[in-house]
């Protein structure tokens, strides 16, 4: 172990401190600015200054735009808060925006026939969101992983073409994507119905996104339409992650498997996929998180219809908060959404974790 060069007293104490000698705090107590000199003096002090310098803006940014809103949402979840009402003197809490304890969360557990409209909408939107996420994640992975493997297997010159082709939708505005898919699914002027009409040889009008009675395996077709649009846009993101991971798979392992007689499918199934487990975990968590947060596609493509069949939690949060001014209720749903995503991420990481690295 090398001994750090000691330049001055301040550094000496800093080294002691970094070695875990807590007594140095007390040792400098008699000097008015000894602690400060110790902390920022010398070479390590300069390093600390640099670290503080580069980290402070991000720490402030995170504190103000991430941590505080989360704290504020958690606080609001315990109040019957509406921005339209004048509450107490401190940030509008209290007064006409009373503290209601865990009432908002309690209401969410009301499954009776007479439960209020907002509770029914919450239950419906929770079901819709779970359905959306649990379809999107496996379908996305089932497409992107083989596709990435395919792109990696083709001629080197063609790879960037495919990579860019599939990544382009990621760069597109979600609103633009929603409008485009809305046009494709339009019952009268839509491309899809036009294509079906051509194939069938007669005019076909199917209300893909507006018929509440249209379902496949219990999943509303309107929701499937949004899923198709979402996967189309999100595909490239996971594709790039998998391509990067595939490039990192040691060639020696593949060669060893080939020497052992593995066929291409066996190579993919028993060598590549297990080695990609950490990447699959990352991609599935990221996809799951973003699937729970999708808002713009639902808002623009279906506006939650037909009959609330595509009312996702994010849409329910937005409508409750900004359309109907039930900020407290909306914050409680946000907290629940946060807990769901957090819980599912933990479960996923537990299920897909591996004990080794390559």
């Amino acid at each position, binding site marked *: 172990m090398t001994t750090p060069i000691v330049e001055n007293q301040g550094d000496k104490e800093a080294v002691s401190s970094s070695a875990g000698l807590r007594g140095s705090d007390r040792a400098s107590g008699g000097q008015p600015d000894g602690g400060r000199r110790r902390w920022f003096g010398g070479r390590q002090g300069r390093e600390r200054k640099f670290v503080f310098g580069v980290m402070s803006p991000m720490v402030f940014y995170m504190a*103000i735009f991430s941590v505080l809103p989360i704290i504020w949402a958690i606080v609001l979840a315990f109040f019957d808060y509406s921005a339209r009402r004048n509450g107490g*003197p401190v940030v509008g809490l209290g007064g006409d925006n009373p503290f209601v304890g865990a009432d908002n969360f309690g209401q969410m557990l009301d499954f009776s026939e007479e439960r209020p409209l907002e509770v029914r909408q919450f239950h419906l939107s929770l079901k819709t969101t779970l359905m959306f996420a649990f379809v999107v994640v496996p379908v996305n992975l089932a497409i992107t992983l083989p596709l990435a493997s395919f792109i990696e297997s083709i001629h080197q010159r063609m790879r960037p073409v495919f990579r860019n082709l599939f990544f382009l939708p990621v760069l597109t505005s979600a609103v633009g994507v929603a409008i485009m898919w809305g046009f494709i699914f339009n019952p009268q002027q839509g491309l899809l119905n036009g294509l079906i009409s051509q194939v069938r040889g007669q005019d076909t009008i199917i209300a893909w996104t507006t018929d509440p009675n249209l379902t496949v395996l219990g999943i509303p077709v309107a929701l499937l339409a949004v899923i198709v649009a979402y996967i189309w846009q999100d595909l490239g993101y996971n594709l790039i992650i998998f391509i990067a991971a595939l490039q990192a798979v040691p060639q020696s392992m593949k060669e060893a498997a080939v020497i052992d007689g593995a066929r291409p499918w066996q190579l993919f199934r028993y060598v590549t996929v297990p080695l990609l487990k950490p990447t699959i975990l990352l991609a599935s968590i990221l996809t799951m998180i973003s699937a729970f947060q999708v808002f713009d596609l639902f808002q623009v493509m279906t506006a939650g219809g037909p009959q609330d069949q595509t009312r996702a939690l994010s849409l329910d949060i937005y409508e409750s908060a900004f359309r109907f001014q039930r900020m407290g209720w909306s914050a409680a749903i946000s907290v629940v959404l946060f807990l769901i995503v957090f819980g599912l991420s933990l479960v996923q990481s537990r299920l897909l974790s591996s004990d080794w690295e390559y």
Partner: protein
Amino acid sequence: MRKTKRSILGAMLLAFALIMAACTNDDESGGEEPETGSGELSGNVRIWTHQNDAFNDGLQALADSFAAENPGVTFEFETFDYDTYIQTLQTSLPAGTEADVLQVFGSWTCSYADNLAPVPESVLTTADADSAFFEAALDGYKCDDQLYGMPQEFNIEYGATLVNTELAEAAGLGDLSEGWDDWDAFTADAQKLSEGGEGDMTRAGFMFTTADALPYTFYSMIVQQGGSYLSEDGSAFTINTPEGKAALEQMTSFVEAGLVDPVLYNDEANWVGDCFFATTCAMGVVGPWVVADYKDDFPEVAAAATYAPLPSMGDEPNFVADSGWGLTVSNRSEVSDAAWAFVQYAALDAENALEWNAAAGTLPALRANAEGDAATTLVEGFPQFGPFLDILGSGQFVGELPDRDLLWYDITYPHILSALQGNESIDDALAAMEREANETIGG
């Protein structure tokens, strides 16, 4: 390391404290009154409006002429796109950071009334307001019999239907501008304009299944029969009534007659403005503002667009309407005299109000501007206003509802649409609407 954590924690607490301080109500910000109080107005009046070029150009012109007459007064306009504006109002009013004059949609006024200034008696008494403005345009600005602003427009969505005259002529219907004697005559004509049937409709004869049109039609039909969807003291909704049932049955009959397929035509697909100007619907329930909105993109269809009065389920062409856009003043305004003088100048002075209506393409809130030369001027500029000007007096305010948007978009629209689509019986829809509506007032 511990000290680093302490520093970061300290910094976060400081940031939190600063933000909390910024968000805290400052009730003592009344400040000094910069106006002279000697009758001469002065001060800088901040005005907030939503982004609508026609509206704002008209208001700016009035502000310019007011400032020319009152050299001590200056104006500062701040505009926001619609969604941002609503959120800005909702957050800035409780925080006390709003402008002096606020453009507000009348039906929202009471939800902001805690932070708005009542109209001073010296400016306008409630009795004078009642005689000057149409009831439907004004009543949204009244909260507990106290007036909080003045309307500039009459917001109308029901009473007459938008008609494509070219399609009507092609169907051999001739001039429809006089309307129809009864619903049977109307249905017969609308049937001739429909193309295709349930499941394969390519043109709706009468499109009334949007999130706005369904509630306006339904509640208007109730009041036409002499009914009411609110109890007398306003403490409960009374939707599941014989009048409500008759209204819903009448609306269902339109679907059964093949005037519209509510699965293909609703608020999510083939919205009335879109389908009318794409000629996939021939008639539709929507306010006259839609023509101004679409005419640049569809000049030929706009030229063929006119309005025809709809039949009534009673003796009078009664209808319900929201109170439209108007002007209010913040109760924290430091230049309230100048602000009220401007509101009076823009909304109550008949000539100025007409100038704004003509610039904005809106129906007048002032009774005086719906008749005589003023009416002629408006109809010359906006021919589609004609049928509406005759019925404005039959309009009644939707009522001081606990949450109008919730009643309209999350209760009435989905249940009626579901009933029209055949997924809910009329009785079930009425019962559900009444129950859910009463939940909003805890009834």
